[in-house]
């Protein structure tokens, strides 16, 4: 809603004049309740018109009020039934107390309503967040389940890779599905690589020592399971993992060999 445009359209003046249709008036009312700036504008227009029309009165019609009162028989009975004065006051007090209580109640309800509306908004946001989380969790679960299925496959060869000098705590496991020519590298036991570096996985032939790169683990941090599938068509005799500059190297940097393990024959 463009507030300024709405105000300058002139619809508010007609609203105060009372020349809009009932439906149009109700629409303006909804807008007023939503935009305090617009309500303020209406108040100002009304103030101007109140002054303008008051200036048209030939004089202050104070005396007319007494005639109205007489005609409506207002406050006449008060004088007549003077004995009832006390009781009447009681009624008045109760009436006042009731209206004050009602007002307080209304204000409280209004505030409560606002609060509840906010809570609904908050709950909606939270629900969206949770839905997102469930989605992610479900994807993770599917991935983990399929991994588990793979690892349970009896044809898979498990090759533990032992720590080397660089990091005595490091370890990794290769699950080699020879038939499908895939090596699953579990690197949960490796430290997060420093910036600009990646782990590179090598398939090794021992005599003579011939390394073949299976690939770099450039998604190391992103992958929660820390298990990577790499295709391996080699007749590997051992697997090794080295830390290499981003993008990987042509041949392994042996000073940065983290883990190494031979395939049992």
């Amino acid at each position, binding site marked *: 809603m463009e507030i300024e445009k709405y105000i300058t359209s002139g619809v508010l003046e007609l609203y105060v004049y009372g020349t809009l249709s009932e439906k149009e008036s109700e629409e303006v009312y909804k807008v007023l309740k939503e935009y305090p700036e617009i309500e303020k504008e209406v108040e100002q227009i009304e103030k101007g018109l109140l002054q303008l*029309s*008051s200036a048209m009165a030939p004089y*202050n019609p104070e005396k007319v009020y007494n005639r109205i009162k007489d*005609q409506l028989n207002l*406050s006449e009975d008060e004088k007549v039934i003077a004995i009832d004065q006390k009781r009447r006051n009681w009624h008045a007090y109760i009436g006042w107390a009731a209206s004050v209580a009602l007002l307080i109640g209304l204000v409280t309800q209004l505030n409560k309503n606002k609060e509840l509306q906010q809570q609904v908004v908050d709950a909606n946001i939270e629900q969206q967040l949770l839905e997102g989380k469930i989605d992610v969790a479900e994807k993770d679960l599917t991935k983990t389940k399929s991994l588990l299925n793979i690892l349970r496959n009896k044809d898979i060869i498990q090759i533990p890779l032992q720590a080397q000098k660089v990091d005595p705590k490091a370890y990794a496991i290769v699950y080699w599905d020879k038939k499908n020519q895939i090596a699953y590298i579990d690197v949960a036991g490796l430290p997060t690589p420093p910036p600009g570096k990646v782990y590179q996985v090598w398939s090794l032939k021992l005599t003579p020592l011939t390394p073949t790169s299976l690939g770099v683990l450039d998604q190391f941090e992103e992958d929660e399971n820390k298990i990577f599938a790499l295709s391996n068509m080699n007749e590997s005799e051992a697997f090794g993992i080295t830390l290499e500059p981003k993008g990987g190297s042509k041949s392994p940097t042996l000073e940065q060999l983290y883990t190494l393990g031979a395939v049992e024959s």
Partner: protein
Amino acid sequence: MQPTILIYQLQQKNEKAFQKIYEMYADNTFGVIYTIIRDKTISEEVLQDVFIKIWNNASSYSEKKGRFFTWILNIARNAAIDKTRSKSFKNSQKNQEAEYFVDILEEKNSFSQKTDAIGIKKYINALEPLCKKVIDLLFFKGFTQKEASEKLEIPLGTIKTRNRICINKLREILEV
């Protein structure tokens, strides 16, 4: 301001609230009636009728339908226009020459109102003639945009913005 609490009390037939409402709106209601009737005594009678209607029909007012000011304005205009159509009024008619509301300011010599009517008078005299007519028809006489456009022979689409400009000029001088 909408006198919300007073309206609520009025709807509960609270006489004090009624009196307060009278104090707030009698002047301008009298002004609107007089603009249409142009006779002080008859205008007083109509004013009396209008406030009796306000007392009797207060419960039919709902903020959703419009401003309280507007509700009273409608009652006053309708009552005044009804009166001008009555036989007794037509017979007693004398001051029909004055056409627009501004003429009233010309006639007036004493101002007892709380508003600065002298200031308004000064300003309104400087208002464009078309502004005077637009405000007279739309506000004081309650014409629809269509009726006003036909009477003034100006395009329907320009009535609303023209009126806004006129009211803005008015508000400038009144500083509201």
